[in-house]
């Protein structure tokens, strides 16, 4: 299958590969997978709790070129955005940016799921933190 130039570029030079401190209260981690193809994708966002702005994003994906490119592009897309804006990102944006063929659309869905999962995780952590602060206050 022929990949688009953009997919190949992201695959060869993935942006923002790496990890953030999972125990950091301002880091949300999303771990998602596509069992049909055995792919796993981990997306981590460092979010400013005051402003809700995503200050950093890192990913690690084991999977096909499209899955790697989708998550790489997703990190570029969401850095600097507020979590509200990031939540509204649709997989179709990734599809059109990377020219993903129909058989690879699920890779972009995976990236969208990862963004949502990471934000959910951040919110959960913040809620827990606030709850424990109230208890101790």
């Amino acid at each position: 299958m022929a990949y688009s130039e953009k997919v190949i570029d992201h695959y060869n030079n993935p942006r923002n590969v790496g990890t953030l401190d999972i125990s950091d209260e301002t880091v949300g981690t999303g771990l998602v997978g596509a069992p049909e193809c055995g792919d796993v994708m981990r997306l981590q966002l460092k979010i400013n709790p005051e402003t809700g702005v995503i200050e950093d994003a890192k990913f690690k994906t084991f999977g096909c070129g499209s899955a790697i490119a989708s998550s790489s592009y997703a990190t570029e897309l969401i850095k600097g955005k507020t979590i509200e804006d990031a939540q509204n990102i649709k997989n179709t944006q990734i599809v059109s940016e990377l020219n993903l063929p129909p058989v690879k659309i699920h890779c972009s869905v995976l990236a969208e799921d990862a963004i949502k999962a990471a934000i959910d995780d951040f919110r959960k952590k913040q809620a827990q933190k606030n709850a424990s602060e109230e208890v101790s206050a």
Partner: protein
Amino acid sequence: MSAGTPDDYFAFMGIDRELLIDTRMLEQRYFQLSRDYHPDFHTDASEEARQTSLDNSSMLNRAYHTLKDPYDRARHLLALESPDVAEAQRKQIPTSLLMEVMEIQETIAEARQHAGLDADPERAEALRGIHERLQTKLNNLRGDLDLLAHEWNAVAQQSERSHKEPILKRLNELLDTRNYLRTLLQTVEAAMHGTPAPRH
């Protein structure tokens, strides 16, 4: 095959929609139907009838090979019984499984990076250990599948969905786990042999 409703291979082969099947009977049906549908026996028939026999022959081969393999049979049953379950469950893959897959992938990737500085028996040993662990897990899945197959056969003829759904869900999870384990096994084998990681 159309995207919406898959062909029912169980019905096509004339066997019950069960997971534990008599494979000898399946084979007999296959041979019987092969004769019935064989295009050579329909050379005098109309164009339409010949096309039908050709279609049936190719479907017969797909049906037989799908039902013969216990995992493919389970996957097919799931597609027929619960076409939405796979999609609905995609977001509910157990986190523990994803974490384990991620961890093993990272270990393999790390071992690969250092592969150039060969003569690292520790990493080679680590890869062998992972390989063995994955192989054991895959082997154990077969026993789990057999247990689920027994459970399914006990309720297969009932119309009550509430008895079936939990089994179908567990079946889906088992097949997902197997996909992951197989991908990992291929990846670790490639790392052990120093060949590129499998891509798809």
